């Protein structure tokens, strides 16, 4: 480990990112521009999150990486190894033991504590981008709190599909001011965005950092007659029996048999270790 490039980035780059993080915390939900650096991994592999983690980690931290809820995907393993090598930090798969968690596409099921920090990898930080491609215009819309178009889009969903069809990256309003993209987490995770931990969001290609401090009001956009619903598959986990966790549907064989399992692999494992048993585990035992 080269102490002069602790966590890969040089000190001046980390200072620039740290200044952006402080401004992001001071104006929750507002996207702070930053000068994203080339990282030794392709965009789409979480270079924004990696840079935010690099600026946040200390040698005493215990680091966890989640990819779609799992710790063992190629993406998660390579980011974990990257910080083991460049920052010398301990790593873990256990949510409870982690002090800094970097994630893609999920918020952990376990309630995070005030001494924990979660860093989200963000592909497209601008929630208004699909309505308005020009950055100058979306900046203006945020400055004027001109969010009517966003509501129109959600309402069109309702008239076409009978419900809001947006299932991931469901837009939220932060602290009654900025509309924010929570990254492509399932909308089931939206209620967890009001938490005790510090939430940081990093978009590498788009060069934006934003944040939600602990205990900050985060409201999913909705309508009086169509209130927001944090939906998931209506099924308990087939392995651990959890009824409160977000589930992945897994096809088991050519006959089309399927099972539902917790997307948060650490949550599922810790429940099974505690003796909870789901449908398939029961069948195997029988």
């Amino acid at each position: 480990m080269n102490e002069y490039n602790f966590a890969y980035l040089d000190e001046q780059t980390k200072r620039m990112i740290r200044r952006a993080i402080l401004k992001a915390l001071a104006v929750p939900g507002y996207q702070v521009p930053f000068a994203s650096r080339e990282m030794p991994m392709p965009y789409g592999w979480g270079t924004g999150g990696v840079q935010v983690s690099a600026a946040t980690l200390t040698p005493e931290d215990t680091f966890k990486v989640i990819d779609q809820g799992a710790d063992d995907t190629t993406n998660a393993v390579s980011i974990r190894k990257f910080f083991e090598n460049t920052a010398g930090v301990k790593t873990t798969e256990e949510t409870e033991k982690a002090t800094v968690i970097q994630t893609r596409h999920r918020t952990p099921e376990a309630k995070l504590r005030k001494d924990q920090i979660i860093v989200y990898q963000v592909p497209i930080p601008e929630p208004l981008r699909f309505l308005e491609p020009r950055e100058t215009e979306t900046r203006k819309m945020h400055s004027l709190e001109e969010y009517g178009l966003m509501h129109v889009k959600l309402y069109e969903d309702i008239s076409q599909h009978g419900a809001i069809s947006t299932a991931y990256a469901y837009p939220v309003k932060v602290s009654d001011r900025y509309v924010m993209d929570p990254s492509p987490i399932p909308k089931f995770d939206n209620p967890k965005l009001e938490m005790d931990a510090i939430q940081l969001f990093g978009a590498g290609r788009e060069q934006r950092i934003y944040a939600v401090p602990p205990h900050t009001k985060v409201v999913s956009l909705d309508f009086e007659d169509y209130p927001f619903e944090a939906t998931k598959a209506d099924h308990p986990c087939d392995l651990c029996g959890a009824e409160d966790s977000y589930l992945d549907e897994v096809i088991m064989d050519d006959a089309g048999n399927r099972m539902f399992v917790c997307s948060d692999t650490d949550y599922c494992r810790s429940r099974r270790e505690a003796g909870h048993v789901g449908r398939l585990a029961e069948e195997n035992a029988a």
Partner: protein
Amino acid sequence: MTAQTQFSGGFQNAPVQAAHAFRAAMTVMAQPGEIRDLRGAQPPKPLSIAAGTLLLTLCDPETKVHLAGEFNTDGVREWLTFHTGAPISQAAVADFAVGSWAELSPLGSFRIGTAEYPDRSATLIVECDALQQAGAILSGPGIKDTARLSLPDAPALQANAALYPLGCDFFFTCGDRVAALPRSTQISVEA
């Protein structure tokens, strides 16, 4: 003991000390009312250890720093320039400013950001004689229910919060301790 020179009093191990200092700074900015230890620098007087450590952690040639009143000494200027390369500036263009509350007032001299870029605002490092979780009542992002913090001037800080999402952000330093007050915090005082 030898006299302090501009060359002494920096970080001994910058990557690690800056990482620890930033975590303290981030923790207090994310949770207004919290107070943390902040050490690492040994800056020349009248800079406190906490203020000096913040400057080494956050400033470099890309940030303009305003030194207010008694903080604008040859010793402080030379120390800051040697260790950070930050240009010393007038209040109106500063990214960071250091001073006592009286010397930093009125706040109107500092940048508050623009409607489209509210992040382009000054961060003020206010050196305080005391720092306690007492006094003004704080609420808003980062705070569960309410918190308390000794503030130098609640009405001026309320006026700053009223500019939201524009406004300055504050660190309060006292010896080797730090607290923060982002513009998003609502402030009230007991009648």
